[in-house]
């Protein structure tokens, strides 16, 4: 057990505390015994999260209303992609159906909110109740899916979740009295609270709410990844048999991972519902579900920072492409056909290229750049001890490529997996 713990911890120590904490990955090779300071790094993580949140909220003052609306969308998508990136990156379970989980959260939020409105509850209490409803519904669905997922692998899970998204309109139609069929469920408008009304516009307020929810989700997920559960997810993904021998209940870990990612996806759906005042099956199509996958793959599987940048890309790129085609003054027919399709085409191509040539995504590129900077800044003699140019040079590889590449590049990750255990023996 202890062997296993330390081996995975070597990875967790560096990649666990996001790209923001520039723990030089070079150290992972030389520092054989990783330091165990869970409390200190938890505090650091919380501080980082708080800092980033304040930064994002301050940023809303620089943006016009439409940009703030886009920011709210990005934050809502980030809730879902953050969970998805951990699920795929740390446990290797591919879900193509996270849009359905977002929809579950959205419906949970809408139904609870409407019930609260009827009961005469308003304001923050209503929002809180709605979020609780969203979390409850998406957690229930996530648990059910997770139970199935624990028994399935790769393509089977992908297929089941794919069918789930495709079946979403059918569910909405069959349970039309509750879910409202194709029309979906509408909720009452939630304006800016009295105290802030003079200060900010409604879009900015929505961006604030979205950012706060996303911050809570991302922080919770970062803590999960950082803690015991995260370790066990990695262990089970790296070598399921070994993990089981070491006493990790891999099935239970998978269910927990799925439930966590479902809850944050549900929170994202709730935020979307809050922003758009409606939830309908038309908003959670298969195409949207695949976009979430694009976001996490392009961002870099397993990286929260990557999920954030991926979410920004899936919101901003279609808008940029749309603006571009509008500016080109194309014939109406062609413009209509390009509208929407061109962005999907670009996303598909990016997805293929990233998987084939840059499996670590944006996070990998960023980490490599940081490593290169760190290496350049440090005097050469100190950075590379006598016998160690090779491990030092190859160490950034496995760090840069987060989890899934543990299997794509076994030779690259070999030093990390074997070294600590050898020394311990």
């Amino acid at each position, binding site marked *: 057990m202890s062997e296993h713990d330390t081996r995975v911890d070597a990875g967790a120590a560096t990649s666990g505390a996001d790209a923001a904490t520039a723990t030089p990955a070079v150290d992972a090779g030389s520092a054989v015994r990783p330091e165990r300071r869970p409390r200190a790094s938890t505090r650091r993580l919380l501080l980082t999260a708080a800092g980033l949140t304040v930064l994002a909220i301050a940023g809303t003052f620089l943006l016009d209303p439409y940009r703030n609306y886009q920011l709210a969308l990005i934050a809502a998508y980030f809730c879902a992609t953050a969970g998805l990136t951990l699920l795929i990156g740390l446990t290797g379970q591919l879900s193509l159906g996270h849009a359905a989980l977002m929809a579950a959260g959205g419906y949970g939020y809408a139904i609870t909110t409407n019930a609260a409105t009827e009961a005469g509850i308003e304001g923050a209490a209503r929002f809180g109740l709605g979020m609780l409803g969203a979390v409850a519904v998406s957690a229930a669905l996530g648990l059910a899916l997770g139970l199935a997922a624990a028994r399935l692998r790769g*393509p*089977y899970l992908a297929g089941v979740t794919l069918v789930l998204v495709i*079946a979403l309109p059918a569910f909405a139609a069959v349970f039309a009295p509750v879910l409202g069929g194709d029309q979906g469920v509408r909720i009452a408008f939630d304006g800016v609270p009295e105290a802030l009304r003079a200060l900010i516009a409604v879009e900015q307020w929505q961006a604030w709410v979205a950012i706060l929810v996303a911050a809570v989700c991302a922080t919770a997920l970062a803590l999960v990844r950082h803690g015991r559960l995260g370790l066990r997810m990695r262990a089970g993904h790296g070598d399921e048999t070994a993990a089981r021998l070491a006493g990790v209940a891999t099935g239970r870990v998978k269910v927990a991972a799925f439930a966590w990612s479902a809850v944050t996806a549900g929170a994202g759906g709730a935020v979307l519902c809050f922003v758009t005042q409606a939830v309908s099956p038309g908003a959670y199509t298969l195409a949207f579900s695949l976009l979430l996958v694009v976001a996490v793959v392009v961002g870099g599987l397993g990286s929260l920072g990557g999920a954030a940048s991926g979410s920004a890309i899936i919101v901003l790129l279609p808008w940029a492409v749309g603006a571009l085609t509008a500016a080109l003054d194309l014939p109406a027919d062609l413009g209509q056909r390009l509208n*929407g*399709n061109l962005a999907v*085409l670009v996303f598909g191509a990016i997805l293929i290229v990233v998987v*084939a*040539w840059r*499996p670590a995504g944006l996070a990998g590129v960023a980490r490599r750049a940081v490593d290169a900077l760190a290496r350049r800044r440090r005097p050469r003699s100190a950075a590379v001890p006598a016998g160690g140019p090779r491990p030092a040079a190859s160490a950034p590889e496995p760090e840069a490529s987060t989890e899934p590449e543990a299997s*794509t590049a076994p030779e690259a990750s070999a030093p990390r997996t074997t070294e600590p255990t050898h020394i311990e023996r």
Partner: protein
Amino acid sequence: MDRLLFLLATGLARGAVFALFALSLVLIWRAARIVNFAQGAMAVVACYVAFAATALSGSYWVGLAAAIAAGALTGFAVERGVMRFAPASAPLAGVIMAIGLVMVIQSALGIAFGPQARPMPAPFDTRPIVVGGVPVLSPYDLFVLLVALGVMAGLLVLFTRTSLGLQLRASALAPEVSRLLGVRVGRMLTIGWMLAAAVAGLAALLLVPTELGLTPHSADLLFVYAFTVAVVGGLDSPAGALIGGLVVGVVMTVVTGTLGATVAPIAVLVQLVTVLLVRPGGVFSAREVRAA
């Protein structure tokens, strides 16, 4: 009772096509250990080629031949141009690349042809024949059933009775040994993809006139059905694909006929989850565990 008989008969015809499409998934799975999520999109490319060929020549049969050829070409292009670059040791990479391919193909078709459905008439009558006062199969359904069963029989002969089939099976089962024995494993992989894509194109084309219609997304549902069939039958088992296809086809047709088309995806989901939870190896698979 009459209605049930009618549903059973049409269900068999649909099921045969599902089985054919599922068989194409099984072919690729056995050759490359990839569940090709792009199979539906690739088949739609073949259908658009068939549409263009039929429009140009005025003959359905030219279109049919063109679809098969285009399917094979698509398979070739996808294997050589995209899937060859999938990192071999990560099973998810292939799935994710296939999803990228779906997005590229569907949006490219959307840009080229627009979202509206193209009319694609059937070559035979689609009204059911009435036998003794009971409507049974339409001539077109009969044609579909015969073509699907014929192609499956042809594949069976190809794989069990020819040298090419032996090489295909050998390179799927033990690539290293086959290479030592002089089988061109890379070429066999490409041929496997071409074969599978051609079969998928044909299967999709058979369903386009009656139920799918021709849009960039028309094979999405067919893929979902076929995936279910492949899972029910066991991804490793061609015979399972046939039986699974017939079972799923009949179940889906009866469900659609009695409860309405909206429920169909839910029925698929229920079947899929039930089979995967109760018998993850597939109902008709002899294998113990599924190592995906």
